[in-house]
């Protein structure tokens, strides 16, 4: 059934947040990224990144795996299939919103 709702209705609150969008943007290009890479790529503090990763993990959009390299702990993050789908839907809705604005339908 076609979705006739306004694109803004299809924005996912979990994904539609600038840090979480940024996290998913990185993870759709890299199959996995560690905590440090995400922090540097997005310019975040440890606490800020942790909080947003937790939200995404609870929504089932990312998987988090903790490993050790020797004695050094490492946290690897990857995007799940629902996470990729949610990100794609979000980008599609944003593009539709933009097309609507460009066409003067706001």
């Amino acid at each position, binding site marked *: 059934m076609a979705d006739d709702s306004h694109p803004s209705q299809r924005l996912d609150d979990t994904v539609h*947040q*600038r840090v979480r969008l*940024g996290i998913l*943007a990185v993870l759709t290009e890299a199959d*996995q990224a*560690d905590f440090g*890479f995400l922090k540097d790529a997005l310019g975040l503090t440890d606490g800020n990144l942790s909080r947003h990763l937790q939200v995404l993990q609870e929504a089932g959009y990312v998987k988090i795996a903790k490993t050790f390299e020797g004695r050094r702990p490492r946290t690897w993050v990857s995007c799940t299939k629902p996470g990729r789908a949610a990100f794609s839907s979000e980008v599609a809705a944003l593009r539709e919103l*933009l097309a609507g604005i460009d066409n003067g339908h706001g």
Partner: protein
Amino acid sequence: MTRGGTSPTGRAPVDDDPAATLRQLEEVRKRTRAGVHPAWFPLVLFGVLGMASAPFCAIGHGLGVGLFWLVAGPAGGIATSVYHHRRSVTLGAGVSGRPYWMVAAGIFVAAWLAGAAESERVQTAGPMLAVALGYLAFAYLERSRPVAAVADILALVAVAVGATGVANGCVILSLSFGAAFTGTGVMLRRRDRG
């Protein structure tokens, strides 16, 4: 990224400029891609191997070059996997090698089948056409326009060599493919180093 007001549910900030958000997302994706997709290494490695395979064209009507790649192909693939794994551990980000191995296997099978064809022109040009098409697939995985452009040109070269039946076609193709991939790899390496 731009900040806006809160959503009607009060749950999350809403960015009220979709154009800016999309631009910023694309920028993040582009920077990530540049970091985790170092296409230069396999291009240079397989480019050099390609040029090194040229002398084997004279052995056994193409069987020599086929056997060369039976050894060099998997060895090059393993070296590339090791390079990418070590890089992903150092960088803290990486991509799965599975799609690349699948493309490589496809190239291998198609090239060997073409090499076993009855027509001498297909034997000469078919394997290299398989390689060119395989590199188009790699270009898609890497989101690399330079690699796609080079693969397109080399596909045309392979077809032209096959169609004209030019003498020493195997040597011409091995050297031209090898030089083109090596040159592209070197160019990408210089570009990535800024």
